[in-house]
């Protein structure tokens, strides 16, 4: 069988099929981290169920020396640890690939393929022989298969040992049992299989300036660095770990050394309506405040997001998107909230959106969200998603400029208020159509009534058509002005490319890989990743420059494309869609297949 696969170094994909709640995550994470420490470009995607224990869960590791680490759809090795999904897992391994399974029990004949190699390791037997406690036997089975994989793929054992030392520095017994389980699998594989397999690892030096972090942790860290002090939220997958991480960082960094008090207040709200209400209330009295949520939360927040928009109160919403509509698939990824966020709430509303593509941008854009929300006195949404938020990504080390000062926007201070005879809330607009605001508790001269009901530029209640329109037209001008302040699109051009490929968020690595693959198929394409809404002139210029633009996104209704149609003057016929929205992270194959098919259709149409 070995001849079927030519030898490949640092270029393969592994899929691990597990049962949820059996402790497989730590074994899978250990492998991923060890490969990262070996300096090799790697990604790990956790495809997990909305369940605590018992349902199937998968973990995919892709290693690619050229840095293409989007989800692969061809698996060289499947670790089949879940008998419920054996049939499907066996089907998914590529021709000539390998299947590692627990040979404590015989494999059903129907699962035998003659074009793959089976690596049977009696994991249960080995663990039952070496561990006493039932729970430990289950947990250690995972570490044992990790041991077998270390042998099969040539993972650096020294690095693995080092990782276990770090992880269990204060739990010696656990360290010992992990090492024991690791050796069980490792020794068995070395003795029974030809190790390494034809695809294996060799140390590189591509990750020394990088970190391995998930987007939700990076988002929380961004909120800490931005100086957020009030956070209100309602638990919802996949955003919960944003607030868990924020709490952790606040414990670490926000305990005042002199007073012992916490320089932050995190409130677990009764629902998302309340969470956004608290955020708005806190911003109204002058704090940097935020909430983290997902699609269903965005729907519930709609009402008050309109209030914040109309009354011009800053608010930061971290939307970690999942599959909708309704409850949808809470543990699957999608970019399905673009339209819901862009126009959240009833009436004429438009919001500022930021689209990070990986955890490093989550950190950077989280800070940016607060600056924009306060400068433009309006809600700002950062649209991350489950793939970015909950998977570990290899990204450049985060950097910070100590000269940074928060942009608090136009807030009148005591000195300015003392000189003022009468404060009129929505007058005195600057070049970006932003009026000055005041905070309670500073001076009576700044007092005014904040209201979501009709108001004129003076801030007074109105039902007059002219006075009403005056205010909402300025809001539109203000929104447009924000285009210059959102992060610019990332654009990469090739010679003479007539095709543009446009994407956003976590589609980035798959689309980049596709752009590298397409020339082999005779297609040269330019790349643009949109990072903010309202769209800047650069976005529109790129779309106009190309005969056709493929908009790659993860939702059914082509929401980014729809937004481009609505909010730019680009001809609709120039914008075509590549959509993948089943809930798993995007793969380059989704993009190349879609483009080849559509280019074929286009050429065919021209030929006729």
């Amino acid at each position, binding site marked *: 069988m070995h001849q079927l696969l030519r030898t490949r170094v640092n270029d393969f994909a592994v899929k691990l099929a597990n049962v949820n709640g059996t402790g497989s995550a730590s074994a899978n994470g250990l492998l991923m981290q060890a490969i990262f420490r070996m300096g090799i470009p790697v990604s790990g995607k956790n495809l997990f169920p909305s369940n605590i224990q018992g349902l199937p869960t998968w973990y995919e590791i892709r290693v690619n020396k050229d840095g293409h680490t989007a989800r692969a759809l061809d698996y060289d090795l499947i670790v089949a640890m879940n008998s419920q999904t054996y049939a499907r897992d066996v089907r998914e391994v590529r021709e000539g690939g390998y299947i590692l399974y627990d040979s404590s029990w015989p494999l059903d004949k129907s699962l035998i393929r003659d074009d793959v190699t089976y690596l049977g390791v009696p994991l249960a037997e080995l663990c039952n022989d070496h561990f006493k406690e039932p729970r430990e036997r289950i947990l250690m089975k995972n570490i044992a298969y990790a041991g077998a994989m270390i042998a099969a793929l040539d993972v650096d054992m020294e690095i693995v040992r080092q990782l276990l030392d770090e992880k269990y520095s204060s739990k010696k017994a656990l360290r010992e049992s992990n090492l024991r389980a690791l050796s069980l699998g490792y020794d068995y594989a070395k003795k029974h299989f030809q190790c390494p397999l034809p695809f294996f690892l060799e140390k590189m030096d591509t990750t020394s300036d990088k*970190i391995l972090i998930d987007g939700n942790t990076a988002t929380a860290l961004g909120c800490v660095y931005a100086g957020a002090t009030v956070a209100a939220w309602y638990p919802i997958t996949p955003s919960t770990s944003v607030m868990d991480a924020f709490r952790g960082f606040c414990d670490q*960094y926000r305990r005042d050394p002199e007073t012992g008090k916490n320089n932050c207040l995190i409130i677990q709200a009764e629902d998302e309506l*309340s969470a956004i209400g608290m955020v708005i*209330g806190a911003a109204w009295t002058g*704090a940097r405040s935020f909430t983290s949520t997902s699609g269903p939360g965005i729907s519930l927040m709609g009402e008050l997001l309109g209030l914040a928009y109309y009354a011009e109160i800053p608010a930061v919403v971290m939307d970690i998107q999942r599959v909708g509509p309704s409850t949808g698939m809470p543990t699957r990824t999608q970019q399905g909230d673009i339209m819901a966020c862009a126009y959240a709430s009833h009436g004429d509303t438009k919001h500022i959106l930021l689209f990070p593509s990986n955890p490093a941008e989550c950190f950077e854009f989280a800070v940016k969200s607060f600056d924009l929300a306060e400068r433009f006195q309006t809600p700002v949404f950062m649209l991350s998603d489950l793939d970015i938020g909950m998977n570990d990504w290899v990204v450049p080390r985060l950097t910070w400029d100590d000269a940074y000062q928060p942009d608090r926007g136009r807030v009148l201070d005591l000195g300015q208020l003392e000189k003022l005879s009468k404060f009129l809330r929505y007058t005195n607009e600057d070049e970006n159509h932003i009026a000055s605001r005041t905070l309670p*508790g500073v*001076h009576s001269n700044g*007092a005014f009534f904040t209201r979501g009901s009709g108001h004129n530029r003076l801030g007074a209640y109105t039902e007059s058509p002219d006075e009403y329109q005056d205010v909402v037209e300025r809001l539109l001008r203000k929104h447009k002005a924000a285009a210059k302040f959102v992060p610019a699109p990332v654009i990469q051009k090739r010679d003479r490319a007539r095709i543009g490929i446009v994407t956003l968020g976590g589609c980035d690595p798959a689309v980049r890989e596709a752009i590298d693959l397409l020339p082999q198929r005779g297609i040269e394409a330019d790349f643009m990743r949109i990072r903010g809404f309202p769209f800047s002139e650069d976005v529109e210029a790129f779309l106009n420059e190309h005969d056709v633009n493929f908009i790659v996104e993860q939702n059914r209704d082509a929401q980014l494309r729809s937004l481009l149609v609505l909010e730019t003057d680009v001809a609709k016929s120039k914008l075509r869609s590549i959509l993948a929205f089943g809930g798993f992270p995007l793969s380059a194959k989704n993009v190349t297949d879609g483009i080849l098919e559509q280019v074929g259709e286009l050429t065919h149409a021209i030929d006729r």
Partner: protein
Amino acid sequence: MPSIAKPVAIHPSLQKNVLGLTMRDYEGAMSTLCAGCGHDSVTAAIVRALWELATPPHMLAKMSGIGCSSKTPTYFVSGAHGFNSAHGRMAAIATGANAANRELTYIGISGDGDSLSIGLGHMCHAIRRNVKMLYIIENNGVYGLTKGQFSASADVGSKSKRGEPNRMAPIDPVALGLSLGATFIARSFSGDKEQLVPILKAGLAHRGFALVDVISPCVTFNDHVGSTKSYLHTRKHTRRVTESDFVPPATEILATIGQSGTTTVTMHDGSVVRFTGVPKDYDPTNRQRVTSYLQEHQGQGEVVTGLLYLDESVPDLHEMSNSPDQALSKVPYDKLCPGAAELAKLQEEYR
């Protein structure tokens, strides 16, 4: 609470508080509510309470939702910031505002639609969090702005203007507050300023969430025969069960004994609530006793009023969260940002 425009000139004989401000300085815009609305009387009581307490106008935050009641923050203290937010969401917004700046005095004005239907959850959780604020429900049993639908506080059998009786059990904010662990619970009547003013003052001095349910009749939609929230019915069935007054800090407490004995409760800020008249079997600091007393009297068709329950021992949201004494919004940025060196160090954990 002027319902007619008054001259701007302030007569020199008007009494001033310790800040040198007159009652006029605590007034707001002209009321646009119906003539005779109970809410305007509540506004008048708020103006007096704030003037007597000498609250600096700019340190007050007036919070409301949507409804007739929620319009009233416009009618008092025009020198304070106000927030007329969204229907039912005031408690949530006030919680956030308080979280960011605990130095302000918060008054939330709500109604029975705002608090007992669309915003019931938010109010319940603000009670649980013991957010330090005075929370007034101007309770009239009816939706005014949408013209006369029953609210959740309408009593069984109470009749609408058209004569239809309400059949669903009411939500009683006092009973609800008692069951949720509210730390300050009062009920009063908009027509009883003598009782209401000291209750409001005590509520403003309270350590946490002060729930004040004020029966405030709606003259337009719920003041007819057959309504249990009319002026006539309320006057007839109200029973002032506790008599209390409020003594600010550093004031000599003169000993006067009420009819049934005196209980004093020292507030967190050093002021004192003195109960000058409570029934013999009534202890305003005993939740169980208060609950059974109220149930008993409610069964007899009485609307029991007074400062009914008070507990100064429970920490508020900030105390529970160990947040700083000053407003979080005022913590300097250099205390909030860990800086570049720390970021570099932290990232060693993500290798």
